Structure formats: structure tokens, C-alpha cells
């Protein structure tokens, strides 16, 4: 032990030993000192690489055993002795094998990443592993890397690859942008890469009679369109795959549609398209279930009567200070065509609830499981001019409101608490940012996904697109989307997860 401890003095530890020195040292030490080296057969060169071309292995004299090669040691950089000493608190031997001993390894300074990968071939990975690796790529990267080689390109059509993709729990949202003239509808905002992408226009929508299709809902990896003839087309914007749903029966066609919402299940790779129609307050629901492949029988929603009174009362209470505002502008709710059916769907305690904006600007909640609906108390008094929209974030419904007050504009996000039947503010745009909208008579269209939401602010002269992270309370104005030298204008957006595996 004594002799060994001598050799483990700090000075020699930090100096790489040459091969001859190592052998000598090993000879000096009693063989019983080495109970069972895990590396009897081979030097540990293949196990302990560090970027500095030296490899080390520790034998601890205090515990008389080979240390488990902790990754901590693995990545210590011998160029920084101070750091290295920390992990050598116990007396131990340290062997350094220098690179030169093993001519099959290139002796290069792996400073650049380009050099690092010498010696690996991903072609060596079996198909299963390759598919799993590629499934974790952000969608834009995946499409770029399809041009690496034929094998990578063909992965997209593999069924097992799609299964691997569906195992990725969530993807950063993309926002499908709606052009006010409904032409050139193929621009998305990719939140992973933070830029605009011009996708190929889904082919079925290019057919003449579908040309003026309006996107009306989205969920999971899909966006739903309504054609000029009133039919629905479901589309995966990433793959361009489209499917025209069977006709809605004629009874429904004559009815006013209040809400169109979509709900999808990643596990079952199925989706539902839900319509709420009728003359308010006589509402009925029509559901298309992709798993069944047809429209289900419609059902009537009954009004939960006990809440009518409550809503009116609460409505009066939530006037706040705003009722003191001097100039009263009586207008109806502003609404852009794309948000005609503005609605969201959430699942609460296993019950699906659709929220939509009624024509008078209140929020209506339809519980599909209980087949009933309620009206929420007004957020702002009816005579107040404002723009409002509903969004869904993390499975919860929020309301976004833009209004002008005391010579400034304010944009706030509210949540409804069932327990107290009242609205509470959860976020507000920084006043300096929202002040820009003052006097613009702007309209907002919002869409949520995960923790984020996109807010499209539009007025005749003014357009702005803001990405808000509710958790971080981050508000970022997106750069302009320039196509052919001109800044594109968008009316609204729909969010979806770019998923190549989402079936239409």
C-alpha cells in the first residue's frame, strides 16, 4: 500500500504515464491489489475517451477496487488540473493511455465538429434506431434531411416510423396563417425555428370548387377547412394529405353554425369534428367521428336554466371601473369572417366542453357529455367597444380582450373560475406594446397551443402578429412575413402540431 500511495502523489497523477512507466508500476504493485479489473483484456481506450485524446482508468487504493467508471471522470479534462483534483480525493492510481498507442484512431485535434464524427457511420444503425432518431427531429429538419440519402428519404413512408413519431409526446406548434383574401393559403409560422414557411398548397384544396375554402378549426396535426359548398375537408398541412368528409345532412345545412371545433387523440390517431348549430338558444350538436367514418346522430343541447339569472347578475357585477368610462360607443361585436365560428374545445373531468362567442359577445359553454349549455357572465359591459376571442391553452379556455380605455389600449387574458363564477386576469400585454394599438380600432384573432398563443391584431392600416407565452409572460412581436418582396397580411391563424403521422 505504501509504495502505491507514493505513486499516487499528486505530481505524478497529473502527468500522463508512458507505457513503460505504467508497466513498471503495475509490476511493482502486488497483483492482489487488483481484484478484478474490468479491463483485463483491453485497455479502456474505447471506454474513456475525452476530447483531449487521453483515456483514464482509476484504481482506488482506499477501497481496493476499480472505481466504477463514472461519467464524471470520463469527461474530466486533464488540461485543467484543478478540476481534476476534485475527483481524486481518495488515493488512487490513474493510468493515462495516450492516443498514439492505437494507430487505428486518428490523431487529430477534435476542435471542430466536422472532425469529431470521423469513424462513425449512422448507416451502421439498424432501421429501428434510425427511425427513432429521425422521429425526434423537429419537422422542418426532418424534411430537410430527407435529402441526405435514399434510406433517410424512404423513412417517411415507413409505418414503423409513423409509430415512432406518435411516441413523441409533443411538438412545438406551427401556426397556419389565414390570408384575408383566402388565396395563397400555405404560410405557416414554425415556432421551433422561429420563422415563416411557405408550404405546398394541399392538393385537394386546389380543385376549382374548393378554391375559396376557409380554415375553420384545427387540432393535433390537422386543420379543417370548409369549402364554398359547405363541405368539410380535413388536411394535414405537413404532408398535404386531404380528405373530404361526407356531406352533412340537409337538415343541418339550413341552420346557422355557431361553432366548429375539432378534437383529436394522438393515441388513437383519430379526430372528431363538432358543429354547434341552430337558432340561439335552440342549439344542437353534430359530430363527425373519424374512427367511425360518418356523422353521428345530432342531439339537442338544453339550457342550464339556473345559470341565466346568475349570468345576468354576474354580468352587472363585472362592470368594474369601466362603467365610468365617459364615451360610450354602442356597437356589435366585431368579427372577421375567419372567426365566424371561433370556438375551442376542452376536456374537463372527461367531459368535452365547447366554448364559442355568441353574437352578442358572451361566451357560451356547451357540455357535450351532459348535453347542455350555459352562458358565462359578461367580461365587459355590453356598450363597451372591444375585440374578444377565445383560446385554448394547456386544455383550458382563456378569453383574450383588446379594448381602449383612458387614452390607451389594453390587451388582457382572462380565465373563468367555475367556483366563483367570475373572471380573473391571468396575463396582460406590457402597456408599452399594447399602446401601439390605441386609436387603430383593431380586431384581434387568437389561437392557443400548449403554453403559447398567437394574437393577430388587424385594422385597416395596421397589422401585427404577437406570440405570447403564458407561463413565462413573454410577448414577442413576430417579424414580417415577406413573400416576393411584399409583406404578407394575415387575418387569423390556426395552430397545429406538425406531425407527419397524423392521418386525415
Amino acid at each position: 500500500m505504501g509504495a502505491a500511495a507514493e505513486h499516487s502523489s499528486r505530481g505524478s497523477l497529473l502527468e500522463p504515464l508512458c507505457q513503460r512507466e505504467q508497466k513498471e508500476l503495475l509490476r511493482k504493485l502486488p497483483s492482489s491489489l487488483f481484484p478484478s479489473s474490468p479491463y483485463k483484456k483491453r485497455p479502456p481506450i474505447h471506454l474513456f475517451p475525452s476530447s483531449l485524446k487521453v483515456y483514464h482508468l482509476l484504481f482506488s487504493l482506499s477501497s481496493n477496487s476499480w472505481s466504477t467508471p463514472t461519467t464524471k471522470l470520463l469527461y474530466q479534462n486533464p488540461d485543467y488540473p484543478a478540476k481534476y483534483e476534485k475527483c481524486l480525493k481518495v488515493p488512487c492510481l490513474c493510468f493515462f493511455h495516450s492516443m498514439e498507442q492505437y494507430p487505428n484512431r486518428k490523431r487529430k485535434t477534435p476542435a471542430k465538429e466536422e472532425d469529431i464524427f470521423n469513424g462513425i457511420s449512422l448507416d451502421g444503425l439498424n432501421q429501428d434506431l434510425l427511425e427513432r432518431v429521425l422521429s425526434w427531429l423537429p419537422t422542418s429538419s426532418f424534411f430537410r434531411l430527407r435529402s441526405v440519402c435514399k434510406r433517410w428519404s424512404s423513412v417517411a413512408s415507413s409505418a414503423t416510423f409513423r409509430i415512432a413519431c406518435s411516441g413523441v409526446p409533443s411538438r412545438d406548434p406551427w401556426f397556419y396563417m389565414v390570408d384575408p383574401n383566402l388565396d395563397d393559403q400555405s404560410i405557416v409560422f414554425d415556432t421551433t425555428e422561429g420563422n415563416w414557411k411557405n408550404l405546398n398548397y394541399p392538393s385537394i384544396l386546389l380543385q376549382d370548387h374548393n378554391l375559396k375554402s376557409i380554415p375553420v378549426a384545427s387540432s393535433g396535426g390537422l386543420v379543417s377547412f370548409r369549402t364554398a359548398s359547405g363541405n368539410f375537408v380535413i388536411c394535414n398541412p405537413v404532408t398535404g394529405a386531404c380528405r373530404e368528409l361526407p356531406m352533412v345532412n340537409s337538415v343541418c345545412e339550413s341552420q346557422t353554425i355557431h361553432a366548429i371545433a375539432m378534437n383529436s387523440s394522438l393515441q388513437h390517431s383519430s379526430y372528431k369534428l363538432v358543429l354547434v348549430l341552430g337558432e340561439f338558444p335552440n342549439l344542437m350538436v353534430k359530430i363527425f367521428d373519424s374512427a367511425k367514418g360518418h356523422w353521428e346522430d345530432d342531439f339537442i343541447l338544453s339550457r342550464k336554466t339556473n345559470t341565466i339569472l346568475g349570468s345576468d347578475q354576474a354580468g352587472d357585477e363585472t362592470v368594474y371601473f369601466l362603467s365610468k368610462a365617459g364615451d360610450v360607443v354602442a356597437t356589435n361585436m366585431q368579427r372577421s369572417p375567419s372567426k365566424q365560428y371561433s370556438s375551442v374545445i376542452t376536456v374537463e373531468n372527461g367531459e368535452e366542453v365547447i366554448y364559442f362567442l355568441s353574437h352578442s359577445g358572451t361566451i357560451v359553454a356547451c357540455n357535450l357529455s351532459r348535453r347542455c349549455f350555459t352562458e358565462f357572465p359578461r367580461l365587459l359591459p355590453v356598450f363597451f367597444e372591444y375585440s374578444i376571442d377565445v383560446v385554448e391553452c394547456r386544455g383550458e379556455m382563456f378569453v383574450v380582450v383588446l379594448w381602449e380605455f383612458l387614452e390607451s389600449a389594453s390587451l388582457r387574458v382572462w380565465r373563468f373560475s367555475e367556483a366563483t363564477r367570475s373572471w380573473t386576469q391571468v396575463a396582460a400585454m406590457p402597456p408599452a406594446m399594447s399602446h401601439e394599438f390605441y386609436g387603430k380600432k383593431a380586431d384581434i384573432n387568437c389561437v392557443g397551443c400548449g403554453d403559447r398563443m398567437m394574437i393577430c391584431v388587424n385594422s385597416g392600416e395596421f397589422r401585427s402578429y404577437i406570440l405570447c407565452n403564458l407561463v413565462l409572460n413573454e410577448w414577442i412581436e413576430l417579424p414580417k412575413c415577406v413573400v416576393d418582396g411584399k409583406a404578407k397580411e394575415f387575418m387569423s391563424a390556426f395552430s397545429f402540431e406538425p406531425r407527419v403521422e397524423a392521418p386525415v
Partner: protein
Amino acid sequence: MASTSNSTSSKIITLRSSDGEVFEVEESVALESNLIRRMMEDDCANNIIPLPNVTAPIFYLVIEHCKKHAEMKDNKEKKKELRSQGEELLKSDPHTYSNLMEAVNYLDIKSLMDLTAQWLADFLKGKSPRLIRELLKIKNDFTPEEEAEILERNRWAFD
């Protein structure tokens, strides 16, 4: 042998790597591997479980990662640590990294399969196809026409 006095009463599983090394691993760690779990259900529990496709050094790495992964549950620091170590290994020794991936796949350790794939994907994601071909020594087997076609089809992704 290493002292066992401080270890808890958890059961120890004995495993043998392809190069003949014998490992003693706590049951909780060993059961992360669905392969080992299945073998134990087939009543190999009292014997040494052979792992013919995994070498000792790689198995060390796997066990290290398993332990770390078990610790990292609801611990963001550990998560970061494990991730940066994974990336470090990937950059410094990709060959070992691909061996690790294969071993994890063979041992059927779901959590690590996802992590190791994710790290590699993160490494690849910002790189151009040309650079990736260079890095991974992949031959471009497209004809110029095919390559032009596939680039045209996916042009949007290069914006």
C-alpha cells in the same frame, strides 16, 4: 470485493456481459431493462443472466445512465447533467455512443432509448444534409435528377 454493508436490502441481480465480465446490479436498476425483466420472469433470477450482445464497457455506461435516469425524476439539475454528458459522449466518441444506443435498444430500456435518440436528433437538427453526409460518412446515393427533385419537393423546409 466492494463492501455491501451500506447497501440496502434490495435484491442484487448478477449479469454477465459478452466479454465475460460479471456485474452485480441492484434489481431496481436492472428492471429498467425490459429484456432483463422478461428473462427474470422466465425464471433466470437465481442464475447469472447472460447478455451476449453487450460488452462490459458499454454495459457500465448503460448502468450509469440508468442510475442517473432514476435519480433525475423531477430533478431538473440531474436531467441537465445527464443530457450534457450524453452530448459530450456523442461529440467525443460517437462510436461508443452508437454502441450505447444499440445496447440500450437491445436491453429494451424505453426511457434511455428515447433519450439517446433525442440527443442524437438534437445534434443533427440544425445541420445541412451535406454536412450530415460528411459527418456520418453517408454516401449520397441520389442521381442528380433525383436529388434536385427531392430538394424541390422539400424546398419550403429550407426557408
